[in-house]
């Protein structure tokens, strides 16, 4: 199953979430120096997931697949974020690795 799009989207959304005001404040365990860098890396991952979707599903189904998988990753991220934020945000590297593996297969 071409899940890389979803994994990359998850990672991207997770980075964007991490960079949001909710998690970026002094005393937050997610505080990172490069707040902007986190957000941009997230956006970059989202763009990458779009490219991967176009590659996997073709130019016509690609945007449809990307939109759907992006939303779905958002739902998953959101449910995790609301109960286990550390886990949710910490899954980024795992999602990226998974995506890489799937792309290679």
């Amino acid at each position: 199953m071409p899940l890389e799009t979803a994994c990359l989207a998850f990672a991207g959304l997770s980075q964007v979430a991490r960079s949001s005001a909710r998690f970026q404040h002094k005393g937050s365990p997610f505080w990172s120096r490069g707040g902007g860098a986190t957000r941009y890396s997230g956006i970059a991952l989202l763009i990458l997931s779009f490219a991967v979707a176009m590659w996997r599903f073709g130019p016509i189904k690609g945007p449809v697949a990307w939109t759907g998988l992006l939303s779905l990753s958002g739902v998953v991220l959101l449910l995790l974020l609301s109960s286990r934020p550390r886990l949710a945000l910490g899954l980024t590297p795992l999602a990226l690795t998974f995506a890489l593996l799937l792309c290679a297969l």
Partner: protein
Amino acid sequence: MTGKTENARGANGEAKSGWRQSMAWIHTWLGLLAGWILFAMFLTGTASYFRPEITRWMQPEVDIAPVSAVHAAMTAVAHMQKIAPQDEQWTIFLPDDRTTTTRIFTRARPDPDPKAAKPPRRPEIRVDPATGDPVAARETKGGEHFYRFHFQLQIPHPWGRWLAGLAAIFMLAAIISGVITHKRIFVDFFTLRWGKGQRSWLDAHNVSAVIALPFHAMITYTGLITLVAMYMPWPVAANYQKPATFADAIYGVQDDGKYLGRRAPLTPIGPLIERVSHEWHGGRPATVIVRNPNDAGATIQIARSNADTLNARGQTILFSGSSGRRIAASQPPGVAIETAGVMLGLHMGNFAGPLLRWTYVLLGMTGTAMVGTGLLLWTAKRRREDVKPFFGFALVERLNIGTVACLPAGMAAFLLANRLLPADLAGRADIEVAAMYWTWFGLALLSLALPVRRAWIAMLGLSAASFLAIPIVNMITTDRGFFASIARGDLLFASFDMVMLSMAVLLGFGAWRAAQPPKQAKRVRKPRAAKPPIQMPVRELTDAA
């Protein structure tokens, strides 16, 4: 009824147009009036993405090996020649990798006497593509039931479709007004707080709506488009003397075939299928429509499968039914017609492979959650512990229970009835359908006898139990139980049981949450006359309910 558009001034004195307030007000009313129907449409529509899989599950006796399109077409036509050679039209849906049987709809020739009664609608015929014999399995509506309910609501034609259409336009307006009224739509993207009562319901409603907003908007608009010929036929009347001409323009070829009354044997279908696949460079035929079979004026129109393209209306090629001569092929459609076809394709989701199909289903459930949380938010906002609820509140609360908690049980009852009714019982297909309605409405009525909180717990619990029962009953009454299916490598039956279990867990979780004692919110009761010393800027979301 207040909160409309007295020219409101913002915190800095700028004139606000009042769009947020007016849209908040109408959003609530649209959601409330259409919410219960929309919940049912979303839930059954989501299930319909597995229409053929549900049908296969409901006929466990059937074990059909795939055959070529040529073979399937030949056996289907041979079968129809045996049972209804003089019908007006045979519509043959060739099997594919998800629907293993050949499905045939046929229309009898109308009596030339205008005063004679119209022939009754013929039921769907399911045929084994390998042999052409009717599928020897228990009679059932299968996944068709949820699919039909989704846009007809079990109400006689045309009222059911009109009601569904009304709900859909309400949904469209609710989406637009919801977006306008949602103040901090991006900032709150990831906000979901549990256990905070009304806050939580608002979060859940906002989030389920916004995170899958492209899907919800797409599904709603494309849903209206699926029945646009019924909802908005007027432009056709303004441009065409005969509406049928427009239909030809959309569906492909102008079919001028007429019933001539002269008998002529139907040309063999096999070579036509082969020609068509060749012309489409390997594209699969999906539908064969034979008009006026065994007549000199017979025509055969073959439509291409839409499983590999977004446009649901695939290419078609028209042949003469008596000679086999190729008459015409559909022209590539213009932008507007292609757009309509793509919209139809997006709604139906036939193009979706396994991953995208599951995505559709999960997003559909998110949509169901959006509607459900909206309905529950309405009551959560207005619940007053100390005051007896006003009639409207009680009505909404009871309708909520009756829909959100009882409809799932009804759908499970439909599946359970399939396993529990004897396979050779006459009329069992209708009894299965009746089981859904008796269970759904019966439980809804029963819930009226319980106090609200207990009703939620009981009905959600019963729904959970009914889904849990499905894999168990399946294991007892068939040889395709969970473990047997795993051993056999039968992915469909095994994953079906898993989905039933997941539904049971989800509903059980709901029942458990409903049973938790309500959190006592710490409210500082201020005497009415007092005003807050400093006018704090309001950080809340505009209350959309």
